[in-house]
C-alpha cells in the first residue's frame, strides 16, 4: 500500500520535473545539426539529469541518485519515454556498462577513481569487438603483455560506439593462450588520451560516424586498472554485456509504444489514414508493440523477484529487435517515395525519430549489436529449449 503511494509520488515528481526540464525544441534543434552540436546537447541534458538524480537510479545506495528499487527505476524510465526526452546515447556506456562493471568487479580504489568522473560527464566506450572477433568475442586478439607494473597493448578494436568522443575505454584483451580461448582474456580500463591510442571514426549507413576503430601501438595500462584477475576478462565482459538489459528494454519498448502515434501521423500525411490494408498492418503492429512492452515489463519483474531464467534476456532482446524492424518498416512503407528522398534527421531520438528510412536503418543496431538475432536464437535454443550445441570441430569437406 505504502509503496504504491510512494511510487505514485515518484511518478508525479518525475513527470513534473520532465515537463519543466526537457528542452522543448530539442527535436528541431537536433535535426540536421552536425555531430558536435549533438554532443553538446547531450552534455547539457546529461548534466541536468545527474543534478536531478535521474541519471543514476540504478546505482547502489550511497552514490548520488542511487539506491532506488527496480520498480522505481522503471517509473523513471517510463516517464522519460512518455515525455519523449532525448536518450543519453553518448553516456550510455559510462552510466551502464562501466558503472555496473565497476560496481560488480571493481576494487574500492577503482570505484573511487572512476565513478565520480562518470558523474562529471566523462564519456566511455566499449572496446570489445575486433575485425576478427565479432559474434565470436572469445577470439579477441588485441594483445596485452604484462611488463612489471603495467600492461603493454597492441592491436585493434572496431565498431566502438562514440569512441571518437570517449575519455575512457572498457578494453577486452588477450594476455594468455588457453583452451577454451575465454580463459586467456583480461579486462582493462584504458585512458583514451594515453600515448599510442588512435581513433578512426567509421561512417555509418546513415552518414553519421557513430562508431569508430581504435588502434593500439604500445599503449600502457597500469595493473591497478585491471578489472578482475588476469585471465578473468571473459566473466567481467559478460557482466558488462548484461548490465543494461531489462531497464533499457523497458524504456525502449515504451518509447516504441508512444511512437505508434507517429505511424498514425505519417498515415495522415501521406493520405493513407483510411486505407484498410495499412490500417490492418497497423492493428497487427499495435498488438506486437504492446506485447514487446509486456515482455520487457515481465522480464524486469523476473529480475526483481529473482526468477530470471537462462534465455529470458535473449527472448526480450530478439523480440524487441524484430518488433522494431516491423515498426520502422511500416512507417517507411507508408512514407512511399517521399521517404526515399533524403531528409535531415534527428539525433538522440533513439529509433523513433519519424524519419522512417533512418529509423529503419538504425533498427539494425538492435539486431546486430550486443549479440545478434542469430546469437540470441542460439541461446534460446540451447539454454532454454535445451537443444544440443554445435559440434566444436569442423572441417571443410
Amino acid at each position, binding site marked *: 500500500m505504502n509503496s504504491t503511494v510512494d511510487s505514485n509520488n515518484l511518478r508525479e515528481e518525475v513527470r513534473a520535473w520532465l515537463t519543466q526540464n526537457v528542452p522543448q525544441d530539442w527535436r528541431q534543434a537536433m535535426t540536421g545539426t552536425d555531430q558536435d552540436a549533438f554532443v553538446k546537447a547531450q552534455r547539457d541534458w546529461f548534466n541536468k539529469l545527474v543534478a536531478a538524480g535521474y541519471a543514476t537510479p*540504478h546505482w547502489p545506495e550511497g552514490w548520488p541518485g542511487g*539506491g532506488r*528499487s527496480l520498480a522505481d527505476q522503471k517509473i523513471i524510465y517510463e516517464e522519460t519515454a512518455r515525455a519523449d526526452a532525448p536518450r543519453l546515447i553518448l553516456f550510455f556506456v559510462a552510466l551502464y556498462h562501466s558503472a555496473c562493471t565497476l560496481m560488480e568487479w571493481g576494487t574500492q580504489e577503482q570505484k573511487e577513481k572512476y565513478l565520480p568522473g562518470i558523474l562529471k560527464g566523462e564519456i566511455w566506450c566499449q572496446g570489445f569487438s575486433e575485425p576478427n572477433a565479432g559474434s565470436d568475442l572469445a577470439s579477441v586478439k588485441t594483445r596485452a603483455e604484462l611488463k612489471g607494473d603495467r600492461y603493454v597493448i597492441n592491436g585493434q578494436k572496431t565498431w566502438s560506439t562514440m569512441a571518437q568522443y570517449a575519455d575512457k575505454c572498457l578494453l577486452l584483451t588477450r594476455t594468455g593462450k588457453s583452451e577454451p580461448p575465454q580463459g586467456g582474456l583480461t579486462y582493462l580500463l584504458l585512458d583514451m588520451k594515453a600515448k599510442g591510442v588512435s581513433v578512426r571514426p567509421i561512417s555509418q549507413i546513415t552518414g553519421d560516424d557513430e562508431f569508430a576503430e581504435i588502434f593500439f601501438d604500445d599503449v600502457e595500462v597500469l595493473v591497478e586498472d585491471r578489472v578482475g584477475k588476469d585471465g578473468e576478462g571473459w566473466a567481467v565482459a559478460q557482466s558488462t554485456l548484461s548490465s543494461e538489459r531489462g531497464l533499457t528494454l523497458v524504456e525502449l519498448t515504451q518509447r516504441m509504444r508512444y511512437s505508434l502515434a507517429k505511424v498514425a501521423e505519417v498515415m495522415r500525411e501521406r493520405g493513407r489514414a483510411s486505407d484498410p490494408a495499412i*490500417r*490492418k498492418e497497423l*492493428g497487427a503492429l499495435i498488438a506486437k508493440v504492446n506485447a514487446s512492452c509486456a515482455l520487457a515489463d515481465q522480464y524486469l519483474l523476473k529480475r526483481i523477484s529473482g526468477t530470471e531464467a537462462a534465455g529470458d534476456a535473449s*527472448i526480450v532482446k530478439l*523480440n524487441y529487435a524484430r518488433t522494431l524492424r516491423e515498426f520502422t518498416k511500416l512507417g517507411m512503407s507508408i512514407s512511399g517515395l517521399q521517404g526515399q528522398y533524403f531528409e535531415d534527421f534527428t539525433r538522440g531520438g533513439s529509433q523513433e525519430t519519424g524519419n522512417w528510412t533512418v529509423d529503419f536503418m538504425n533498427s539494425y543496431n538492435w539486431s546486430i549489436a550486443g549479440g545478434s538475432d542469430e546469437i540470441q536464437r542460439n541461446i534460446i535454443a540451447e539454454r532454454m529449449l535445451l537443444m544440443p550445441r554445435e*559440434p566444436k570441430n569442423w572441417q571443410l569437406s
Partner: protein
Amino acid sequence: MSASNTYQRSDAESQLIELRDSARQVLSGLGLAVNEEKVWPIVTDLGWLLVGVPETLGGLEQGVTGSCAFHAELGRSLAAAPYAAATIAIDAICHSTLANQQSLIERFATGEIVTASLAESAVAIASNKVTGTMTAVPSADKASHVLVCVENSELVALLSLNQPGVEITARQTWDTTRRLFDVRFADVALDETLTLASGADAKTLSSRISTLRDFALAADAVGGAEALLEMTVEYLKTRKQFGRPLALFQALKHRCADLKMLISSAEALLNDSLSRVGNQLDGAQAVAMGKAAKYLACSVYARVAEESLQLHGGIGMTSEYPCHLYLKRALLNEHLGSGNYELDIADHFLS
C-alpha cells in the same frame, strides 16, 4: 544492482498456481485430445467452472486470470470440453441482476451444460420472440441452455434449447477436438426469468462477453502453442538423420527459438492485459486489449502449428500423430471470435 528489491507472491497467485498445476496433472493423465464424455465429468467434479466465479456466489474468486489459466491448460491438452462457452455463460450470469443467480450457477457448474457462441451471431428480437442464427456453439446438442446476445445489444438472455422453434445443426469442423453447432431460432419465446440484462446494461454485458471470449481463445492458443512447441523440440531431439539428432541443425534450432520468442510475447501480452483489465471487461479499452491478445495469440498459435507440422516431416502428416490436431484447432481459433481483429485494434487506436 539495487538491493532494496523484494517481491512477494500473493495468496491468490499461489492458489492459482496450485490449481493450475493440479489441472495440468489431471489432464496429462487423461492424454491428448480427450473426448467430451471423459473430460466433462472431471471438469465439473473438480469445480473448474467455478474458478472465475466470485466467492459470494460460491466460486473461487480467481477472476478472468483464473479461468484463463484453465483455458490454457485445456488448450494444452486439446481437451474437447465446452469449457470456454460454459465459463462465458456462467460469467454472464454472475454479472446479471437475476434473482436466482446462485441456483443457476450451481446447476451449470455441476453438470448441466450451458453454452454460448464462440463466433458471430445474428439474432434479433421482435415482440418478445427471438429469431436468428448463432454459429460455432459448442456442445449445443447436450446443453440445456444457450447464452444469447441480441443484435444491437438490446438484450442478453439465456434460452432453453429444448423448446419448439429451436433447431440445432451439427457442423463438422476439421478440428475434431471441438463439437460445434449452428443454433437456429424461429420465433422462440423469451423466458423473462432468464433475462440477464437489457438496454444499456445489455450493451455493457455484451461487450464483457465478447472480451471474455477473446481472452479465452487467446489463452487456449497460448496453451496449445506452448505444448506443441515442447513436443516439436522433443521430437527434434530424438529423431536422428545424417548421423545426428535433428535438433543439432541450426536452421531448425533457430526456427524453434523464433517460435519460443513469439509464444512468450503472446503470453506476456495476454497476462499483462489480464492484469490491467482486472474485472473491468467492458469498455473500449478492455475490448481493444482483448482483441489484441486474441489476435496475437491465435496468429502465433497458427504459425507454431504450421512450423511444427513441417518440422516433424512425414510423421506430422499422419492422423495418428497429434500435429494435425493442434494445427486444426489453431486454424479454427483464428476464425473464432468476432469482427476483423487487426482493423478493430487500429480503429480503436486511431479514434
